[in-house]
Structures are given as structure tokens and as C-alpha cells.
């Protein structure tokens, strides 16, 4: 087995373009690694080896002919099993969709292919991207949850089974598992990446997420997928920035707003101390770190997110649920039932409150470049009956703001620790530039010890 599995997206794409790296040998190395690791980690649902290698050979020929213009030419990518893939099963890890084979690619999948990426396979998700735990295991300790719902995607990236994977976030399903597995997770602004062809959980909350091992790699995937899609009713028409250009223009350390209210109050002593230490380290490197209070509208943010998520899930699943309720897992079933009982007035009040909260957060963010907080109240829990706590992601998802989780250390139990940054809507370039500065300052390069 080669060490090419340790390459990130930027390095792999650069080496493919220069002819140093063969897309075929990279794909073969990753497939071999999956063969060895996946029986224990259970990160993958479907892999079409023949298709992967056929595509890799095409990419290799294109690169040899100097036709490798895409940002991700020859780079394999995993997809959470809610992304439509033409001719390949998309099960959402559910009994309801067990035999569903889409006739087209999700828009974001098509864009990845246009950028030259190779679809490596479909990664395990919790059922319908909700909260019933998946069989995936945390590579840092098999007895701990990898988080969810993007569990397989996060485990695959953290263990070098692929350099990048797509997840999604409706509550906390990208940044939380990123934190639990010691990798970078990016949840862009709602509407920045098309949701067309993604099995929905909640139309007005669902956001395509990016799981990678560096902030630069997150920028590359975002660049490849961002942009308006007329097939997605929530898609933004805003122009897409050149994210790496914005990042390269960072001039000096950032101003960071530290959120002690709620976020440190709800954290374990270990996470509290760690986050304070991270803030101190960043300040010593030149960042201006000031405590920022949360707006009053934060008080109802979690309830708004849950109510909207439950009601929209109930609406999407109504027809199947009325006929096949027993085929749903207990937690998504409960969420759907609760959604069915929620008064329409409460749903709309939640949507109105979300709008106010979003506007308030724009004011909160005005004096700083980004908000800083822990990614989760604790490291990954030692409990395979839960996916952990999304309480530190749900408010940002509800407001539609972009967030990024970056690894920041290893805790007492040998599990990754992580901090999360939140930025202004559609200012992903600015947010990623702050995250990259923090990443370089903290210099935390994590790899699960048993999978190096």
C-alpha cells in the first residue's frame, strides 16, 4: 500500500496535473485501503470498483494529453448516500430507498465530475440523514460514535480512505462529525451549493457539507460546487467568489469574537479549558480576541431549527410514512410524527424567528471577522446509541450562516478536539481565510494513531 492515501485534494490534483501521480494508482491505493479498513470502520455503502478504475484511466489519459483543467482532476471523492448518482444506488441508508437508483446526478455531483473528480463511492449516512445511529465507527476509538449524520464520509476522510467527501447539515451533521473525527468540516451558507438531487430532510435547512483534511481543500471543493442552480428553489444568485484568491489576500491576524455565553457554559471542563487555551494561543499569535454576547433571539434558535426540521421532514415523508411507518428507524419516525402534530402557526412563527435571528447575527458579526467557539460540548461520546449533540451547530444551520470546524488538539481520552468558526452569509472566502490562519497557527495535524 502506498502513502498516496495521505495526500489531500490540493496536493493530489497538483501531482496529477504535473504527471507525478497517476489517478489510477491513487484510486487503486484508496480501494485497497478501503478493503483493509472498512470491515471495522463501516464507512461505505456502495463502491463500483470497475467504474472507479475506468474513470481513473480516463482522467489519466486526459492528464497525459495535457487536458486536466479541472480543480480536482483525478481526485477521488466520497459521497454521503443521499446524493443522487446516475445509475448507482442512493439508499439514504433506509429501507424505504433501499432499491432506489437515480436517473441523474445531483447538481453538486455533476459539478464535481466537471471539475475532474472521480466518484469513489457512497458513504454511510444515518437513516435519511437524521439521528438514528449508523453502523460506522470512530477511527480514534471504535467504541465511540463517529457522530452523524455524515458518519461514513467523516470516518473515510479521517482515515485516508478518501481525501474528501460530501456530507450535509440540517442540524449539525457536517461540523459535528468533522470535530469528532479530527478533520475539517465546512457548512457553507444556505443556498450556496445546490441541493437539487439530494434526498431532503428539511428543504429550508439542508445544506451540502464538505469534509476534508485542510481548509484549502475545503475551498477547492466549495469552488467546484458553488453557484446558482435554477432547479433548487433555495439556490442563491449571488456571484461566486474566487475563494483561494480571497484567502491569499489575508493581511495579518483576524479579529475573533469568542462565544462564552451558552457555548462554554454547555461544554465539559476539558472543552472549556481547551477552547480558552486555543483563544489564548491565537491571541498570542496576533489575533484580536474579544468576547461577544449572543443576541436575544438566540434563545429560541434551537426550537426553531427542530420545529422546522420536523415539520418539513413530515411533509416530505408523508406518503411513504402513511404506508410504511414501521420501516422507519425510531428517531426519524418520532421526528416525523412530531412534525405531523406541529401546528402550522408554530411552523411559520419559527420561520419568522429564523429570519430575525439571521439578521441579528449579521449585526453580532459586524465588529469581527468570525465567531469562535468549541465545535461540540465534548469529544465524541463513548456511546454507539447516539450520534452526539448538535447543539453547537443547530443555531448556525437555522440562520443559514457558514461555519467551519477545524481540529485543534487531542483530549485526555485520546480523542480529537475541535473549534468552530462562524462567518457572515456568503462570505465563505473571508471565513476560510480566518480558518486557514487559525489552522496554520494551531498547527494541529491529526491522524488516527491506528490508521497512520
Amino acid at each position, binding site marked *: 500500500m502506498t502513502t498516496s492515501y495521505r495526500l489531500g485534494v490540493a496536493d493530489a490534483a497538483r501531482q496529477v496535473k504535473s504527471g507525478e501521480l497517476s489517478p489510477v494508482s491513487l484510486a487503486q491505493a484508496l480501494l485497497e485501503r478501503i478493503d483493509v479498513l472498512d470491515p471495522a470502520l463501516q464507512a461505505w455503502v456502495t463502491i463500483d470498483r470497475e467504474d472507479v478504475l475506468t474513470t481513473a484511466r480516463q482522467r489519466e489519459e486526459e492528464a497525459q494529453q495535457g487536458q486536466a483543467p479541472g480543480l480536482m482532476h483525478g481526485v477521488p471523492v466520497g459521497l454521503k448516500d443521499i446524493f443522487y448518482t446516475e445509475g448507482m444506488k442512493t439508499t439514504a441508508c433506509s429501507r424505504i430507498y433501499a432499491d432506489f437508483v437515480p436517473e441523474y446526478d445531483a447538481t453538486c455531483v455533476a459539478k464535481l465530475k466537471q471539475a475532474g473528480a472521480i466518484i469513489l463511492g457512497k458513504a454511510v449516512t444515518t437513516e435519511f440523514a437524521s439521528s438514528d445511529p449508523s453502523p460506522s465507527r470512530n477511527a480514534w476509538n471504535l467504541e465511540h460514535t463517529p457522530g452523524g449524520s455524515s458518519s461514513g464520509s467523516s470516518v473515510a476522510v479521517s482515515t485516508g480512505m478518501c481525501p474528501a467527501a460530501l456530507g450535509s447539515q440540517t442540524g449539525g451533521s457536517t461540523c459535528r462529525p468533522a470535530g469528532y473525527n479530527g478533520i475539517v468540516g465546512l457548512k457553507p*451558507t*444556505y*443556498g*450556496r451549493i445546490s441541493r437539487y438531487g439530494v434526498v431532503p430532510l428539511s*428543504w*429550508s435547512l439542508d445544506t451540502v457539507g464538505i469534509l476534508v483534511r485542510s481548509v484549502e481543500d475545503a475551498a477547492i471543493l466549495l469552488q467546484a460546487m458553488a453557484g446558482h442552480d435554477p432547479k433548487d*428553489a*433555495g*439556490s*442563491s444568485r*449571488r456571484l461566486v467568489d474566487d475563494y483561494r484568491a480571497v484567502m491569499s489576500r489575508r493581511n495579518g491576524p483576524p479579529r475573533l469574537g469568542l462565544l462564552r455565553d451558552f457555548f462554554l457554559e454547555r461544554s465539559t471542563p476539558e472543552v472549556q479549558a481547551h477552547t480558552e487555551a486555543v483563544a489564548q494561543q491565537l491571541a498570542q499569535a496576533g489575533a484580536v480576541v474579544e468576547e461577544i454576547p449572543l443576541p436575544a*433571539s438566540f*434563545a*429560541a434558535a434551537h*426550537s*426553531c431549527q*427542530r*420545529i422546522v426540521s*420536523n415539520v418539513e421532514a413530515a411533509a416530505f415523508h408523508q406518503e411513504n410514512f402513511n404506508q410504511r411507518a414501521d420501516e422507519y428507524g425510531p428517531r426519524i419516525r*418520532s421526528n416525523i*410524527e*412530531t412534525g*405531523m*402534530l*406541529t*401546528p402550522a*402557526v*408554530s411552523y*411559520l*412563527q*419559527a*420561520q*419568522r*424567528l*429564523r*429570519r*430575525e435571528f*439571521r439578521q441579528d447575527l449579521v449585526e453580532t458579526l459586524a465588529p469581527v471577522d468570525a465567531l469562535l467557539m468549541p465545535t461540540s460540548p465534548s469529544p465524541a461520546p463513548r456511546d454507539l446509541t447516539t450520534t452526539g449533540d448538535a447543539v453547537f451547530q443547530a443555531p448556525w444551520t437555522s*440562520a*443559514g450562516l457558514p461555519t467551519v470546524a477545524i481540529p485543534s488538539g487531542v483530549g485526555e481520552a485520546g480523542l480529537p478536539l475541535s473549534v468552530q468558526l462562524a462567518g457572515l*452569509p456568503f462570505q465563505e472566502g473571508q471565513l476560510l481565510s480566518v480558518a486557514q490562519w487559525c489552522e496554520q497557527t494551531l498547527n494541529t495535524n491529526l491522524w488516527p494513531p491506528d490508521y497512520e
Partner: protein
Amino acid sequence: MPATNPDSSAEDLAQVLAAHAALLWGQQKAADMGQSLTQAARMLLDIGQHPPAPDTEPACYPAAE
């Protein structure tokens, strides 16, 4: 509707939800849902206690702004 009445308690709301659940799925199911109904009632109460400003319209697709 109790969900929008600021004087409602979580227990009141949970009872209303339980009655609705019994109509949809029967008494036994409603009884089994006790904990999730209590949690749902708390969320509804939370929303009811934080009324939005009168001129705030819902933004079902936040990217549209």
C-alpha cells in the same frame, strides 16, 4: 390554538398534542409518545414565548434575501 397562547403550560400543550396523536394513531401510540410529546410541547412553548416583530415575514428560503 394553545401553541400560540402565551399562558399555556408545557403540560397543557403536551395534552393537546397527545389528543391529536390519539386521533391519528390511537390511544396506545399517543401514550407511547409521552416523552417526545413533552419535548415537542416545550419547543412550541419556546416559540410562543418569543413572538417575532409584527413586520417580520417568514423567510422559508434564507438565500433569497
